């Protein structure tokens, strides 16, 4: 059996598939290691993002007794989101929605400027796959060694290396699943519980789920996720245009490609020496020289590979480089004589940036203006109104006061918009038309409230009114609109 594997014989998946019958199962990709500027950036991003992911649940934040001391904790049991000194109630989940909207517009803007920079550098699928590939190389060796080993029949050495690799992957995957759970429960105590076998079934189920997905997606599925599972490549093309910076092969300079021996003339031929290193390093198994392809995640490793080769053969760098398609066209037409400058300011980037700013402003304003107390009012609709024995008309309301602070507050409830109206609260007295209502720390107080007007002052049909609360000590205020219904006349 011929066991030689050479980088310059690397063939893109597309070409391999074209040569095969209609139906083919997956062709395994063996990406080769490559060093260079982009690889360094990718490592830096990887360390940064994984560091954030694994370490953030361990940041402690003292909030006093009776409150979790985890800086970031999404407490589903207690229905609170703890983010340092900010506490988010379920009613305020729109702040999370806001973050998601901002993330979406951020992604659109980044894509229209820099192509699939999210896919290539920051997507969890890319980051964890990179990490898993690094482990794989450490244990099984680089591309050629792995290909050789996979072609060999099973042996003790091969089994040992494979087992070691999968064990290492599973450890990383378990750490990933564990870290996920720590965002929802107290990290240190839960870790102890997990290790002692005392954690709840939910904790084990979620650790198991995210261990399994990490292991399968980063270890086995890899580029299949990007090519077949992920919806983003399908519609990110809508954000790209000819002015977006993407990874390109400079065809005008590279063609006509061909092998080159030291000392050969460069006249009448392109700079591409057909070393196929760009194909060998590609994590999705494509040939960037075929032009734009849906599989390309913009990871830039082929840029590093080509830089290596160009340096070796003594030609200028940048045969594969970040460039715009518009610039490509101009250079193609003028054989490199002219250039089209990059135009980052375009209608679409202005639109995305504008939307980003508008949404940020809206949510920042909402966040700054959020109160420590909230008021909601629900009117009884059965019956709509009650006629009392002296002829007065009364409506009943369920009033809820959210005290988001961690000390008890006494709120003064008042009603406006209806002359001669009197206020009554079950279980509380009124004074000067206002009722003083005590609400325990960090809870919702529920009160049954009556508004009564004399028959002569009762509206015919519906009249808008407003309830308001005011905290004498903290000057906190909140209001809620409601209606008062009287008999139709």
């Amino acid at each position: 059996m011929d066991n030689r594997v050479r980088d310059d014989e690397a063939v893109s998946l597309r070409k391999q598939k074209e040569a095969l019958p209609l139906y083919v199962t997956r062709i395994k990709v063996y990406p080769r290691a490559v060093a260079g500027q982009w690889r360094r950036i990718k490592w830096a991003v990887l360390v940064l993002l994984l560091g954030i992911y694994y370490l953030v649940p361990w940041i402690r934040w003292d909030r006093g007794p009776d409150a979790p001391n985890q800086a970031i904790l999404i407490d589903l049991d207690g229905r609170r989101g703890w983010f340092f000194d900010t506490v988010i109630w379920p009613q305020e989940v729109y702040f999370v929605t806001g973050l998601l909207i901002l993330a979406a517009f951020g992604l659109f803007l980044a894509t229209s400027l820099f192509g699939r920079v999210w896919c290539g550098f920051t997507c969890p699928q890319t980051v964890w796959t990179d990490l898993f590939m690094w482990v794989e190389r450490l244990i099984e060796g680089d591309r050629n060694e792995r290909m050789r080993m996979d072609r060999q029949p099973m042996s003790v050495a091969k089994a040992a290396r494979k087992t070691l690799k999968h064990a290492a992957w599973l450890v990383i995957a378990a750490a990933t699943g564990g870290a996920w759970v720590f965002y929802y429960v107290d990290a240190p105590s839960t870790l102890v519980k997990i290790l002692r076998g005392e954690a709840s079934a939910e904790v084990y189920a979620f650790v198991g789920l995210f261990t399994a997905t990490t292991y399968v997606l980063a270890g086995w599925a890899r580029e299949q996720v990007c090519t077949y599972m992920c919806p983003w490549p399908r519609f990110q093309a809508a954000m790209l245009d000819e002015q977006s910076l993407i990874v390109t092969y400079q065809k005008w300079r590279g063609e006509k490609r061909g092998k080159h021996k030291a000392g050969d003339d460069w006249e009448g031929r392109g700079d591409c020496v057909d070393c196929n290193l760009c194909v060998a390093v590609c994590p999705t198994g494509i040939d960037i020289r075929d032009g734009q392809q849906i599989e390309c995640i913009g990871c830039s490793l082929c840029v590093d590979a080509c830089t290596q080769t160009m340096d070796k053969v003594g030609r200028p760098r940048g045969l594969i480089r970040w460039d715009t398609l518009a610039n490509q066209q101009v250079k193609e037409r003028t054989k490199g004589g002219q250039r089209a400058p990059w135009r980052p300011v375009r209608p679409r980037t202005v639109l995305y940036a504008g939307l980003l700013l508008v949404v940020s402003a809206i949510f920042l304003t909402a966040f700054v203006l959020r109160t420590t107390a909230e008021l909601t009012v629900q009117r009884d609709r059965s019956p709509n109104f009650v006629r009392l024995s002296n002829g007065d008309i009364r409506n009943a309301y369920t009033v809820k006061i959210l005290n988001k602070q961690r000390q008890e507050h006494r709120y003064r409830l008042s009603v406006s918009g209806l002359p001669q109206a009197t206020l009554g609260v079950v279980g509380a007295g009124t004074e000067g038309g206002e009722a003083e209502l005590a609400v325990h720390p960090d809870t919702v107080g529920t009160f049954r409230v009556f508004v009564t007007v004399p028959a002569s002052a009762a509206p015919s049909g519906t009249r808008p009114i407003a309830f308001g609360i005011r905290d004498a000590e903290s000057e906190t205020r909140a209001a809620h609109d409601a209606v008062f219904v009287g008999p139709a006349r």
Partner: protein
Amino acid sequence: MPTKIEKDTLSGRDTTGHEWDGVKELNTPLPTWWVYTFYATIVFAAVYCFLYPSWPWLNGHLEGSLGYSSRVELTQALEAQAKSRAVYVDRIRATPLAQIAKEPELLNFAMAGGRSAFQTNCMQCHGAGGAGSPGFPNLVDDDWIWGGSLDQIYTTIRYGIRNADDKSRQSMMPRFGVDGALTGAQVAAVTDYVLSLSGKAKATPEGAKIYQEQCVACHGAEGKGNQELGAPNLADGLWLYGGDRDSVYRSIFYARNGSMPAWNGRLDEATLKMLAIYVHALGGGR
């Protein structure tokens, strides 16, 4: 019947031998993972049948080796729920009604428990919000027939009105017309008088005279009623059986005498208390 099995050159698979107008069917086996998943479900079903109640028998069913029963599970769930509520329920049982209303924590629990019991037992007659309907008193207004204090409401719920319970509230409005005490014209006259108390008709001297003779004992000289006797207030413009002339006439001619069941024995002590608190807080409580 398959006739000729060939090897397909493009896919490398065999055909089934079926052919329709030159179109041949490939024999593509089910994916292995699918087949094994299917086998796994069969094994699962067998194990399940052994562990849990499954096959019907002539005299019952296969019980299953785990001894599981959804009925037992329900009982346990109800017990667990009762246990989790016991803290509050016990306190409510031990605390006087007036005191419950003063403790916000107990009041909140009693309101929720009372609301739930009301929706199950009371709303059929009194309406979801307690607004009542003709013949079934409105519990939201401040007009009470048997009294609107916490204790009076509690007694009414516990023993009911005009039922077989010894302690139920008892009183009877005579059937003035049916029993021949008053003629139709006299009933009409007193009807006008009763309506005049809330300014809805003009009274005649005859009606006033009959009222003084027949009605004052229970409904009072000014028609304000008497909660001791369950005699409604006739002067406040709020009517249990309708305030139009015809309805009032019928109330006098035929009498009404509505009843309410005793809830003592059907509901436990704590639930009765919570119901009293809830009804009191609906709006009319004194």
